[in-house]
């Protein structure tokens, strides 16, 4: 008691200085805590609470986590003792949270142990066991763990007692061997053990334990332990059949418990009294205490019910929280789904837009291409028609040009140009006839050169205009005397070339004669005067040698025809001379034929036909 007063003295002396909380030294604060702890261990005095709370605030202010946890646990143990389990739970949880981040293993284990204590009070035995296991596991790493180990064993034994495992509790609460364990703890372990013995009906063992404790005088300090010992003493006497002792002891015990909150011990004492009186045969007293016992039990049950309710409420609120959490999670999931769906929609819309844009673009491109192609085609068509028109025009012009270039403007006959452009095709046609059909034995193509006699004289006498008229009229005569298939060319000046296909030299003689005759008799009217003209004609057949058609080319045949004309001119003119192949070796184109004409005629290698007898060189006459 003296000590208690001293503690209060210290605490109250400190109270005014809490304004300067932060400046209290750590050692001082620890001292204060130790003093408070001792006081609480002796008795759970409510008047200690303000000091504990003040110390707690101070520890918080100074950031002294360790002390903060310790004070939280101390406060928790006090309020818990007075049945305020909810606040106790809260304080313990705060301590646990702080301890979670703390490296101090011992402190953590102490916190676990305090929570296990609370859970045992609340009959949450599973939870209590878990925290005890945790604490036990933690302290394995600590070297000097005898004290905390003994405390854990103590609470483990109490837990076993509460669960009715008396034999196991007995084993667990065995006195520790280490000397460093506090006598207080050893006493508590012993009391637990003796209670277990009593539960098993082994009162002599229990009595031995209590006697030993009495001798060592440990039970006086702590109120709770004092009451526990009183209960046990009474029960030992009861089991031993020492009813009067049991009654005395129990009543003494009841006196201590009056006004305290040790309902459990009260009910146990009342039960002992009832049982003792009943066994003594004092049923009136037995009945009285049984009634009291029943009332106390009811209160106890009410208390238990409250703590059960608290547990249920906690479970319920946990379940509710879980439900709310689940609902939230579901909601979140729903929201997430919605968002995803929305995003999908947006994405779809975007894709759709892109698709339509693409389609529009493609359509536009297609239309453009089609339009461009259509335009192009139109343009091409126009161009084509223009080209066609131009080509036609060009062809027309070409034709005209050709006609112009192939025609002698004066006579309207073909000119030498025309002759050279067609001669090869005519020769080829003739050659095909020669190769393909039966040889006819006579010339197929007759080359004829006609020259107007004394034309220079006409020009000189009557002028060039008159000469032109003569040429025009002469041309007409030639046209009249020839076939459609024959080609008439103004060869130059007053000289004309006739190329007559499919005509042998016999028939050619008649044509020549007709031309000569026609010209001779034709009255050319010049300057209102009639003049007469004659013409000389030379001709030769092609192929020249029917048996050797390739021996002489058309150029040589033309040269020979010109030779014939020369013969006619050299004679009396107004004559035709046809040069034909003679006898002997055929002539070759390599020698100048015109130059050697006379020789060949005379040697008989060439022969002639003529309207003039003197110009006829027959083959035989040679």
């Amino acid at each position, binding site marked *: 008691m003296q000590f208690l007063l001293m503690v209060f003295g210290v605490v109250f002396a400190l109270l005014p200085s809490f304004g300067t909380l932060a400046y209290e030294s750590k050692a001082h604060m620890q001292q204060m805590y130790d003093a408070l702890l001792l006081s609480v261990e002796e008795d759970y005095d409510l008047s200690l609470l303000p000091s504990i709370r003040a110390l707690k605030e101070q520890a918080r202010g100074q950031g002294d986590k360790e002390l903060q946890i310790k004070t939280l646990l101390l406060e928790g143990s006090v309020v818990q003792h007075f049945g305020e389990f909810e606040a106790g739970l809260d304080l313990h949880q705060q301590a646990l949270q702080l301890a979670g981040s703390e490296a101090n293993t011992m402190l953590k284990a102490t916190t676990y142990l305090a929570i296990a204590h609370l859970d045992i009070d609340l009959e949450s*035995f599973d939870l209590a066991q878990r925290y005890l296991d945790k604490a036990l596991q933690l302290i394995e790493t600590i070297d000097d763990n005898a004290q905390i180990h003994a405390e854990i064993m103590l609470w483990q034994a109490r837990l*076993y007692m509460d*669960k*009715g*495992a*008396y*034999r*196991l509790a*007995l*084993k667990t609460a065995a006195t520790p061997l280490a000397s460093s364990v506090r006598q207080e703890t050893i006493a508590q372990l012993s009391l637990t053990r003796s209670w277990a013995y*009593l*539960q*098993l*009906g082994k*009162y002599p063992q229990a009595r031995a334990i209590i006697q030993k404790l009495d001798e060592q005088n440990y039970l006086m300090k702590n109120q709770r332990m004092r009451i526990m010992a009183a209960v046990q003493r009474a*029960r030992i006497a*009861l*089991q*031993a*059949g*020492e*009813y009067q002792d049991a009654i005395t002891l129990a009543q003494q015990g009841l006196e201590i418990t009056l006004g305290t909150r040790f309902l459990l011990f009260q009910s146990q004492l009342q*039960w*002992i009294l*009832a*049982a003792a009186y*009943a*066994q003594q*045969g004092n*049923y009136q007293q*037995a*009945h009285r205490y*049984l009634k009291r016992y029943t009332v106390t039990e009811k209160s106890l049950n009410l208390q238990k019910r409250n703590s059960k309710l608290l547990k249920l409420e906690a479970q319920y609120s946990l379940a509710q929280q879980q439900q709310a959490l689940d609902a939230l999670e579901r909601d979140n999931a729903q929201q997430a789904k919605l968002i995803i769906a929305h995003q999908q929609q947006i994405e779809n819309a975007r894709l759709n837009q892109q698709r339509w844009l693409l389609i529009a673009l493609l359509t536009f491109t297609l239309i453009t291409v089609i339009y461009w192609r259509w335009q192009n085609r139109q343009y091409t068509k126009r161009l084509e028609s223009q080209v066609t028109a131009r080509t036609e025009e060009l062809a027309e012009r070409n034709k005209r040009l050709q006609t112009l270039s192939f025609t002698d403007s004066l006579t309207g006959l073909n000119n030498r140009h025309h002759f050279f452009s067609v001669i090869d095709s005519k020769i080829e046609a003739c050659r095909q006839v020669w190769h393909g059909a039966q040889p006819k034995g006579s010339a197929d193509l007759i080359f004829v050169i006609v020259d107007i006699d004394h034309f220079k004289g006409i020009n000189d006498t009557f002028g060039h205009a008159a000469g032109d008229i003569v040429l025009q009229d002469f041309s007409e005569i030639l046209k009249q005397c020839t076939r459609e298939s024959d080609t008439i060319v103004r060869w130059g000046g007053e000289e004309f070339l006739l190329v007559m296909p499919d005509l042998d030299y016999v028939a050619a003689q008649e044509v020549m004669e007709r031309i000569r005759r026609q010209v001779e008799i034709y009255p050319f009217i010049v300057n209102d005067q009639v003049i007469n003209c004659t013409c000389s004609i030379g001709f030769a057949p092609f192929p020249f040698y029917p048996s050797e058609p390739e021996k002489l080319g058309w150029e040589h045949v033309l040269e020979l025809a010109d030779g014939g004309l020369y013969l006619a001119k050299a004679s009396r003119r107004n004559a035709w001379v046809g040069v034909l192949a003679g006898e002997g070796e055929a002539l070759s184109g390599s020698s100048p034929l015109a130059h050697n004409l006379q020789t060949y005629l005379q040697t008989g290698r060439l022969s002639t036909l003529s309207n003039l007898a003197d110009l006829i060189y027959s083959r035989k006459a040679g």
Partner: protein
Amino acid sequence: MKMKWVCWLLFISPISWGSNQLVVDIISSENFSQRYEDFLAGRHVLDVDTFHPTTKGSHIEIIEMVLLQQALFLGGETRQVVFNPKPSVNILEFSDLIAGESLILARSVWHESIVDYRGALFISEPIVEVGEYEAGLYVTKRNVALQQTPLSQLRQLDVVSNPRWAVDWRALMNTDLHMVSFIGPWETMLEMVESNVVDTMLINFSVSDSLVLTFEGKEYVPIEDIKVVLPDSRHFVVSKNHPEGEQIFAALNRGLHVLKQRGIIKRALTESGFINKRVANWQVANAKMVVEVD
């Protein structure tokens, strides 16, 4: 020597007491006279040396009635035992015994229920030792999954029990099972199992081959490979305050000693199926609490 002693007792007891009947109280609700007669099947109770069950339910109460009589006889109490049904309404459970109005009970009682009456009651040698009493966790037979529950999954099951059955309660407290407290008739508790309000209930193993318990046409089976040990011993109690108490208790203890020596108690418990061989190797759900103490 022994026989001589027995003969002497047989001779002397009628003279000593002048009466040839010994009244043994039995609580009305525990009056199993019909089943008792069935079990005897015409045998004299002292001639019974085989204890095989005749019914499928629990059998221990009948065996106890037989053993009590044989023990008393062997202990020298030769009077014919008469069972006297009594209601159990009293301020204390054993009031009549304490007061000496009752001499002896026909049934054994849990040790822990009488520890505080040691001053008024003689407590016999245990008829059932600590650790011998085993029971099963019965579930409805139709729930096959429950029957296969492994020990590690017990935590998930609800067991119904009556907190007044202190030993049952303590046994179950030390298993992983979740306990549902119910104070009411045993039949109702079985109905709770039947209707799935709870999963299981602690019941003595049935002596049927398959351990099936049939009650009112419904079948129940224990969870396979799991048993629960009831952590206490059972004893006969004799009143200290009864004039004949001391003498009867002496006879009883002597007889029990003889029976124990002859191995009859063990045989009776085994043959009757109370100690069930079929579950001998099953796992104990509350194994941790069953420890030896000095």
